[in-house]
């Protein structure tokens, strides 16, 4: 470690953790998207079960949302669209937390439609679902903030080199 500058050492751990966070987020969204893409009709039933939207809009959501999750899941690993993907994932997670909270408050006994589209015999554990999404949201905020910082530093460096 003697050869590593203090500056690099101080940023190595957060960078490593951010990479892990990014991989976990990416895997979570890709794993969540695949069963829904394979069976959008069953996912549509899960969407309607929240009793927020019904009919054709629910079919459109069941068709589009899994692809958005898949694209943003992979997008977190692609530098060109990383920030856009992180921003959409933040918005999606806020939406999911709100929907779970609303379903919990209304006492709905539904399949959450998160990682599986098929009904489960167990009642949904809303507290766990919300805490899991809050954890993912925190990880996503870290990724987003770090990318903004990196982008700003890059802009400053470019400005300094041109002047």
């Amino acid at each position, binding site marked *: 470690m003697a050869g590593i500058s203090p500056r690099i050492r101080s940023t190595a751990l957060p960078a490593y953790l951010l990479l892990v966070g990014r991989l976990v987020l990416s895997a979570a969204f890709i794993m969540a998207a695949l069963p829904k*893409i*394979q*069976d*959008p*009709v069953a996912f549509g039933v899960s969407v*309607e079960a929240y009793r927020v939207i019904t009919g*054709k809009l629910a*079919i*459109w959501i*069941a*068709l*589009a949302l*899994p*692809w*958005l999750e*898949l*694209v*943003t899941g992979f*997008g977190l690993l692609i530098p*060109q*669209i*990383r*920030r*856009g*993907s992180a*921003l*959409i994932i933040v918005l999606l997670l806020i939406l999911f937390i709100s929907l779970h909270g609303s379903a919990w408050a209304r006492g709905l006994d539904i399949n959450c439609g998160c990682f599986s589209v098929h009904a489960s015999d167990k009642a949904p554990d809303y507290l766990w679902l919300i805490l899991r999404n809050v954890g993912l949201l925190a990880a996503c905020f870290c990724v987003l903030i770090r990318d903004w910082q990196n982008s700003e530093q890059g802009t400053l460096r470019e400005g300094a080199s041109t002047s």
Partner: protein
Amino acid sequence: MLRDLCIILVLTATGIVYSLIAGLSPLPWAEPVLEAGEIHLAEAQALKVIWVDVRAIEEFEKCHLPDALLFNEDDWDQGLFELMNVWLVQPRPIVVYCGSESCDTSQRIAERLRGSLPNAEIYRLKGGWDAWQE
């Protein structure tokens, strides 16, 4: 950022088109064959259901489905009492029908009955009385 969002939007749209072309998803703009809570006449007949006729009494007296119960929404308690008498003797799915596909009465009464008889299997007949006539 705008460029990021455009790329994501294009990729998502490509995925949606793939799902539609590959037949993974029904066409969202197509008329649904059967709405939630509806049943086809043939399936209802196979299940030997309890028919609930919610048309006007004149239409009921003129003609109705075999063993159908007349259900007047204005006399809800009496209708529910008669229906429960039949259902409790031999629990079977209950199918509510009105005049045609476009009438809302059967949908509304089926919804109310689901609240009154939460353990019963209650449907609305697709196409209503017209489906029987055909």
